[in-house]
Structures are given as structure tokens and as C-alpha cells.
């Protein structure tokens, strides 16, 4: 448990090391990246194994940083952060495995990649709003370069859009935090101090502050209608970056909402709750419909990501323990499943066929040329549809159970999203992999299709993520045993009590 901060340090050290050795050899940079990611995953898993579930944050490090402003370098963890750092470890490891073929400026690629990971670990472990904010910014910058340098379609546009959205969001967050700090005469930026300060401001101010902070974070979680950065960003990004983007970066936003916005401003939350819930439901359905008619394979997955993140936001908005526990579980589940989907589309398919247009893929006998990719995509697709046996099912079930308690109408809307998810996922599976129907025509095309076989790192990465979604799907208690006690803490209780309408 107390080793958790080392995930951050190991990642940044790994970044420097990858930069140093990468100049000479791409292979070494890869090895450095893989060992760094695996080390991070190992730390989180060991911490998870020795974790005794408890209510409230468990402090890991607490040092003064900028003493004049009361800013401390304060890291702490509870079951929620633990769930998300394990997810980060998994996504980071799988991402490296799916970037094994990067040759161009590999050292820099992996340095930026690991810096991003370090920032993400930092956000999930911060207990001081300023520290959290600093790590949040650290995570944003490498994304730009990863997309702009190694990306594909329209990469500069996508990268710039994503970064501008992120910075606009963080500007709102910063404004909100400074406001509550000043108006509530806070002694520092620790979450506890800010909560105390927020309790001193008027309800009207709380409503405005909540709007700033929540919206700022929710932009990164893909809240409708501020989601448009997500599909374009995902499409432009290189595989590993889109895996991280969907897998963990979107979770940063949701985590910020849960860790900062809700506990600080319970009254503001109560005011905005129905709005957020309806926006979340709208996002689930809206993105689902768009995914139904996309011609770019990656856009289908990109919009499905937005749709699934709608469930996370809905769970948060429902604001009772089952729904929020489900939302955290869904963050984990979506991180793993979206990573898997992007890996298949970006790495296994696109880098071999050089097309992502479904109309083109339909003509290729992919199920025969790339049976492993087809199998993984079918599994990931089933998981994404929320079928039992995979992590999405208990997560969405818990969200719906909790949402029903708050408002059956929201549950109905979100439930319709499950039907849509089946429709767009099945469409993608059938068109992309099983589109070729003519047996005789398929044979020569298969022979001429210049497909290198699926490599060992790809197989390893896919197995890792499939194992994670199946394990949690069969045994959701593995994570819920961490998450539910964390929601019993007085801070969370106060926020979630305010949330029951």
C-alpha cells in the first residue's frame, strides 16, 4: 500500500530512461517501457493484495510543498483510487505491448507515454486539490505530442482540439477551486480543507462553483454535448494513445467529478443532479445512434466510448452508493474493454490493412486473414454489449439498480442504450470481420492480403485485457469489496446523501 507513490516515480524515471536509451535503440526503449509499465502494474497489484478495505483515504505521503499557500504534496488512496491505479497499470502494460512495432523516434514516444502514465497515477493518488491539478496538467501535455507526432488521420486537428478542450476544462476547474478557496477562506488546498471551506459559502455560490468544477472535469469524461473532442481525438491518436485516452484519460475526468466536485459541493450537486443525469442519458443514446451510422471503424468505437462513459456519468449523477459503486466499476470495465477494442481496430486491423473504412473492410476476408483479431473483437464486442460473464454486466447492472432508486425514467433511457449498444456492436463485428460472404471470391483476396500474422506482444496484450474483463465479470466482488467501503466514508456519505432526491 505505502509503495503506491512509487508508481508515479517509476513511471517518470522510466520516461527519462526511455528517452536516454531510445536515441540509440528502439528495442531498448521498448524494453524500458515494458518493464516500467509492468513494475507499475506489479506495485498496484501488490498494494491491492495487501489492501484492507476501509472508509476514507489512507495517507501515503504528506509533505509541505508551497507552504505559503498551504499547498501540500499529499498522496492518499482508498478503494476507488486503488481500482483506478490497477486499471492504469493494466492499460499501460497492454498499451506498450500494442506499441511494440513503433520504430520512429521510439525513445521519445515511450518517454511521453510513460510521462502520461505517471501523471495519471498522480491524479488518482492525489489528496490535495493543487497536487491533483498539477498531475492533471502533466497528463495532458504528452497527449498532444503523442497524437500530433505519431497519429494518423487529421492528427494535428485532433490533437489540438483535444488539448484545447482539456485546457478549457482545467481552466474551469482551477477557477472553481480558487473561488472556493478564497470565498471559504480555506487554509490550504487539501481536499479536507476545501470541503470545510465549501461548507462556509452560500448555497448559491456552491451551485455556481459546482458547475465550474464538475463541468471542467466532465468535459474530459465525455459529457454530452462537450464530447466531440473524444471521437476525433481517438481517431487521430496512435493505437496506444487511443487505448490510454479511452482507457484511463477519460477516467481522469470522471474521477475528478467523484473525488473533487461531489464531496466539495453536496448542495451544488443536488441542484445540478437532474441536469447531469439527463445529459448523461442523452449522451448514451445520442452517441449510440451516431455509432450506428459511422463508416470509420475507429469512429464507431470512439462514439461507443462516449456512450459507455455516459453510464459512468449517470451512475455518478444518480448519487447513491450502488450507482456510484457501479460507476467506478464501469470506469474499470470500460477502460479495459475500450482498450481492447481500440487495440484490435488500431493495431491489429489498421496497421495491416491500412484502412479503417467499414466499406473497404467489408470486402476483406478478415475473419480468415486475422482469426485472432476477429476472436478478440468478438469477445470485446460482447463485453461491450454488457453480456453477462464480462465486467460490463455487473457494472451496468449496479448503475441501473442505483439509478432506478433515484429515478426510473433515467434507468429506462439508459436501458434503451443497452439495446443500441447491441445494434452498433453487432453491425461493426459483422461488417468488419464477417463482411465477405462470397466463399469463392474470398480465397484469392485472402492470398493477396498482405497480412503479417498477429505478433506475440499483441496476443499477450489482448489476453491480459480479456482476462481482466472476464475475471471482474465473474467475480465483481474483487473490486466492489474495495469500492463499497470507500463510499462509506463520512465525506462520501455527505455527498451521496445530498444526491438522493
Amino acid at each position, binding site marked *: 500500500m505505502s509503495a503506491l507513490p512509487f508508481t508515479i516515480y517509476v513511471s517518470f524515471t522510466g520516461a527519462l530512461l526511455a528517452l536516454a536509451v531510445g536515441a540509440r535503440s528502439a528495442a531498448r526503449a521498448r524494453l524500458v517501457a515494458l518493464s516500467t509499465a509492468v513494475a507499475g502494474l506489479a506495485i498496484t497489484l501488490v498494494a491491492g493484495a495487501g489492501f484492507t478495505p476501509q472508509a476514507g483515504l489512507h495517507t501515503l505521503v504528506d509533505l509541505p510543498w508551497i507552504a505559503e499557500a498551504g499547498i501540500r504534496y499529499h498522496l492518499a488512496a482508498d478503494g476507488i483510487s486503488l481500482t483506478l491505479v490497477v486499471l492504469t497499470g493494466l492499460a499501460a502494460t497492454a498499451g506498450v505491448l500494442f506499441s511494440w512495432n513503433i520504430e520512429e523516434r521510439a525513445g521519445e514516444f515511450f518517454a511521453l507515454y510513460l510521462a502520461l502514465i505517471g501523471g495519471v497515477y498522480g491524479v488518482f493518488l492525489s489528496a490535495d486539490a493543487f497536487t491533483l491539478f498539477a498531475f492533471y496538467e502533466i497528463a495532458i501535455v504528452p497527449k498532444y505530442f503523442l497524437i500530433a507526432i505519431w497519429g494518423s488521420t487529421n492528427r494535428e486537428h485532433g490533437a489540438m482540439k483535444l488539448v484545447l478542450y482539456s485546457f478549457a476544462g482545467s481552466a474551469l476547474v482551477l477557477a472553481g477551486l480558487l473561488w472556493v478557496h478564497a470565498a471559504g477562506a480555506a487554509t490550504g488546498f487539501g481536499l479536507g480543507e476545501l470541503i470545510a471551506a465549501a461548507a462556509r459559502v452560500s448555497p448559491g455560490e456552491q451551485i455556481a462553483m459546482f458547475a465550474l468544477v464538475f463541468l471542467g472535469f466532465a468535459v474530459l469524461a465525455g459529457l454530452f454535448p462537450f464530447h466531440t473532442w473524444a471521437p476525433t481525438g481517438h481517431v487521430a491518436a496512435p493505437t496506444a494513445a487511443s487505448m490510454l485516452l479511452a482507457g484511463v484519460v477519460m477516467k481522469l475526468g470522471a474521477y475528478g467529478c467523484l473525488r473533487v466536485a461531489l464531496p466539495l459541493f453536496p448542495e451544488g450537486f443536488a441542484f445540478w443532479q437532474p441536469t447531469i443525469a439527463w445529459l448523461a442519458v442523452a449522451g448514451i443514446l445520442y452517441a449510440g445512434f451516431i455509432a450506428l451510422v459511422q463508416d470509420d471503424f475507429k469512429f464507431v468505437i470512439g462514439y461507443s466510448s462516449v456512450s459507455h462513459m455516459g453510464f459512468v456519468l449517470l451512475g455518478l449523477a444518480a448519487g447513491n452508493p450502488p450507482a456510484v459503486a457501479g460507476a467506478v466499476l464501469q470506469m474499470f470495465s470500460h477502460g479495459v474493454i475500450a482498450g481492447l477494442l481500440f487495440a484490435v481496430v488500431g493495431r491489429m486491423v489498421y496497421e495491416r490493412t491500412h484502412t479503417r473504412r467499414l466499406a473497404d473492410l467489408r470486402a476483406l476476408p478478415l475473419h480468415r486473414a486475422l482469426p485472432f483479431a476477429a476472436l478478440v473483437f468478438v469477445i470485446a464486442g460482447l463485453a461491450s454489449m454488457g*453480456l453477462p460473464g464480462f465486467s460490463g454486466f455487473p457494472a451496468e*447492472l449496479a448503475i441501473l439498480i442505483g439509478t432506478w432508486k433515484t429515478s426510473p425514467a433515467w*434507468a429506462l433511457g439508459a*436501458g434503451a442504450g443497452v439495446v443500441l449498444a447491441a445494434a452498433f456492436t453487432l453491425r461493426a463485428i459483422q461488417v468488419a470481420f464477417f463482411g465477405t460472404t462470397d466463399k469463392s471470391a474470398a480465397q484469392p483476396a485472402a492470398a493477396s492480403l498482405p497480412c503479417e500474422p498477429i505478433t506475440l506482444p499483441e496476443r499477450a496484450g489482448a489476453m491480459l485485457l480479456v482476462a481482466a474483463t472476464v475475471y471482474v465479470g465473474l467475480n465483481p*466482488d474483487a473490486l*466492489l469489496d474495495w469500492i463499497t467501503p470507500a*463510499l462509506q466514508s463520512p465525506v462520501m456519505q455527505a455527498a451521496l446523501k445530498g444526491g438522493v432526491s
Partner: protein
Amino acid sequence: MSLSVQLLWLIPALPLLAAVVGTLAPRGEFKLSASTAIAALTLSFLLSCGALITALADPSAHLTSNFTWFDLGHGAVRLGWLLDPLTALMCVMVTFVGLLIFVFSTGYMRDDANAKQFFCFLSLFAAAMLGLIIANSLLLLFVCWELVGLASYLLIGFWFHKPEAAAAAKKAFITTRIGDLGLLLGLLWLYDSTGTLLLYDEGQGVLDPVVLAGLGGSTAIGLLIFCGAVGKSGQFPLHVWLPDAMEGPTPVSALIHAATMVAAGVFLMARVFPLLTPDALIVIAFTGAITALLGALIACAQSDLKRILAFSTVSQLGYMMLAIGVGSWVAAIFHLLTHAFFKALLFLGAGSVIHAAHHEQDIRALGGLRGPMKTTFVTFAIGMMALAGVPFLFSGFWSKEAVLHAAHGWGFSQIPFYAGLVAVVLTAFYMTRLVAEVFFGHPRGNGAAHAHENTAAMTLPLGLLAACTILLGAIGTPWWPWLQRTLDPEFLSEPGGAGLMATSIVLVALGLGAGWALYGRKLRQKSAAADPLAVIAPRAFAFLAARMKFDKLYAATFGRLSDTLAACADALDRHVWDGVVRLLARLGRFTGLVNREADEEGLNAGFDATSESIRATAKAYSRAHTGDAHGYLLMIAFGFVVLVFAVLVGGGR
């Protein structure tokens, strides 16, 4: 040997294990996959018999074994197994019929390149179906329900190289999922009201009297759960997927879309029967009646062998649902069990015909198969008579009689009863048409001309199913209603019904006679010849042949609505939301340009002017710095004089 409820999970676990083994087996290991699947299901069958012995020891008991799946902090989500006569009988039926179909498949799928995978999917399906039956938790039931849907998706789309098969698989999955959404919402509501989804839990389950009384009868919950059954059991208006599902290999049609999976909805309604309020039952009864009539009508005008059987399934499922609605879930289960056997028999018979006739399944192009395929003909005829309700010897007669009897006794309305009677005539009619076209006359196509009887792997299951089709009627006759009393210890066999029985015998005879008069007396000569019914009533026939245009209607309404919504959302995203962002970006650029111009014209001009004047001053100064020492001295001397002068003037004062 009896099987305790704690070990009940073994029944679905064994086929699941077989599915895993089959998946891991190397490609082309058809024998390994098939024999594992058959061995596992045989064991499951034996275990089911053991479970039946346990259940029969005390038919009124509901033995349970519950455990916690996961904990949400506020209330755990619990699952469990349930053993009572309903579970045990269903298990025996599914494993036995399934086993025969597995054996049949070894013959039918022998030459398929992916036969190994086929048996994995079959095993997965059996596991999910058995899990659904033994579930003591509506959530576990829902989980297995979804897995049944998945397995059926994989099996319908098994020949995915056929575009129709791929489309049918997708249609089946999505259509049933619409129903599943209702079921899920019903479960959420129920969970919210009672805090549990266990059926029986030492007095705390949703079907236990205390909780039922506390729930106070909610029609909405019952109807939402019914939505799931409407989807899965092909009831109107979600019946459209079932006939299309015939695109899968025929054993699949037999197992899933006739005998077992579609029965899941009926089973579910029988299971949660105590939850259903009288209002909900009315809706169920009328839905069932409409479905029974509609399926039978459409079946009269189809020309695809499997599609006729598919619509007959729709119609029979309607009967079962009707029975539930009029309050006799026992009759529904009786019909479910007998139907499972004779419909499996009919589908496997159809499979035998299709296999022998080189995948020709248009009844107009078949014909004359009575001679070369004797076993298939005899067994198919037995199945046909059971389905048509030919009296006394066949199980279908007794179970249908039970349903009609219950409908007749329903106090609310007699309309479902009359719908059921009309469907009796129609069923006898279209089945006569089918048998006359396929087995009588002379072959009208290449496939039928070269047909010959299949191997024992295929005929043996037919014989066994035919035997069961005849024998099974004995367990539920009015004189000895063993099944009814076992399922429901409080069952009272009502007296009377002889008149009703006579009526339905007359109706069956009417249907058979009409069918034979139209199709049997003057046999079809050419495959292109018009159907006699189409000659009599061309427009009605065309309407029915087009399946009452449900598919067209749905495509024109829901299909178009979904397309429009999708297009709108896409346009909104591309143009409006993204447009706002682009507008902001453009605004930023514009501000930049304006600022630059302002810089040039305003600020810069000022600065330029200032710096120009500074430069001019500097130039003037630099011009003064001539480097001429004389000039400097002159200036110094001049200055000195001025200073002295000034001092003198000032000092003089």
C-alpha cells in the same frame, strides 16, 4: 439415485465444460468436440433424472441453495439454484431432447468445416438453457437468458457466409433484446420494491407469500417481465425474428427455435406466475390468442418447409401463453413439454428431408418422399398428427385439450378460446398441406428425385422422439392428471369437457379434410404450379405469404425512425457541436487578425511615430557631434561667457 439441490449446478456446468473443451480443441477435431458434448449432456440427463427423483419425493417443496454474487454495500446481489418438479421436468426434457438433437447433428453436420465449433456453441446453448431452468434468482435467470440469446446468435449466424443468416442472427439478437430491456426494467423495479431477486429464500424470496403480499400485486412489474417472454418466445408483436432464425442449420432450428429456447419465455411466466395480477393475465391471454391465430394463418401460405414449421411454433407458443393468461400455467407447461418432443421430431424430420434432398427446402420442389424415406415419413407423420391434435393416440391432442379446456373455463372472456378453436382447424389444415406436398405425389425437383434415407445417427433420434410423442400424452389425461398434480399439488381436475373434446375432434377432422381436399386429392404436378389456395383467394394468400407485412411495417416505422435519429445525431455532431467549436476557433483567429491590424494601425503607428521622433532627435544630436575640437572649444568658450554673464547679472543683484 437422487441429486441434492446443492449439486444442481452440475447439470449446466457439464455442458459448459464441454463447450470449453471444444473451444480449446485444435481445429478440425470434430470427433473430440462432438463426443465431449454428447457425453456431457448424457451425464446431465442422468443428473436431471436424479433431480427429478428428489423433486418427486415431495412435489410441493421448493428446495433452494443460495449464495451471494456481489455486494453493493446496500444489499447484496444473491443467486441460487432451485429444485422443484417444474425445474426437474424441464431439465429432463431439455437434456433428453437436446441429447437426441446432438446425436442427430453428428450426422447432419458431418461434412461442415466448422463442425467442431458447432458443437461448442450447442453445448454453450444447452448450458445456458439449463442454467436458466435451475435458477432460483431472477438475476441468474436473466444472465442465462442473455447467454441463451448469445448462443442462439452464434448458431443462427453459423453459416455467416450466407447474408440472410448473418442478417437473421442480428435481427434475432436485437429483437429479443428489446424484450429483454422490459425484463431488465421489471427486475430493477422488483428489486427496488422487495430488495431481493431470489424466487424462494426461506420466506424472503419474491415468490414467498409474505413478500408477495407486501408487494401488493403490481401489474406493471408482471407486464415488464412479460416483455422479456414476448421477445424470447416469439409472441406478437416481436415474433418477426423467429421465422428468420430458420437460416441456421436445421438441428439448431430444432433445438432452439422449436423445442427449448423459445419455451424459455413460457417457462419464465410459469415460474413467476404468482407475481402476475389478473390485469396482467388478461394482457397475456390476449397476446397469446393473437399469436396463436396469427402464426397459424401465416403458416398456411408459406412455401418453405422450415418456415411453415417456424410459424407453427409461433402459433403453438401462442397457445402456451394463452394458457398462462387464462390462469392454467400447468396446462402451459404440459403443452410446452409435449410440443418440445413433437416439434423437435418435426424439425429433425425436416432436417432429414433437407439433408437428403440436397438442401432443397421449398415444398413445391419436393414431393414423393414417402417412398425413399420411409422412416422419416412415418415419424414425421406422427409428429404432424400430434401437432394437428389428432385424438387419443398423440400427446399433442391431450395438451392442446388441456389448454382449450382452461381457456373455456376463463371467466373474463371467451375470445381467446374461440381464437384457439380457429387455430386448431388451421393447424390441421396447414400440416396436411405440408405432408401432402412433401411426401406424396412425385418428386418435382432434382433434390427430391435423388433423395434417400439417412444414416442411423439421424433416423434413430427420429424414432425415439416419435415414441415419446405418443407416450407422453399419457401423463396428463383428464383421467390421470399426474403431471398437473405433480407440478401443482393443489390442482383439481374439473369434471366435464367431453363436449369440448368432441368439438375439437370435429374441428381437427375439418382441418384435415379441408387440407386433403385442396392438396391431397389433386396432387401438385409441377413446382411452378399455383397454390390452390392462391387460386381461391389470391390477395389474402399474397398477404399471408408476405407474413402480413410485419417486416415491411417495422422497416418503414422503427427502422426508418432509428435511421433518422442516427442521421440527425450524426449531423448534429458534425455540424452543430463541432460547428460551435470551429466557430470559436474562427472567432479566435478573427480576434487575432483584428488585433494585428489594430497593432499595425493604432499601437504600432503611435510607437513608430514616437520612435521616429526619438530617432530624429538622436540624429540631430549626432549631427552636433562633429568630432571637430575647435567647434567644441568654441562652444565651451561661448558657454563660459554666457555663464559668467549670468553670474555677474545675478550676483549683481
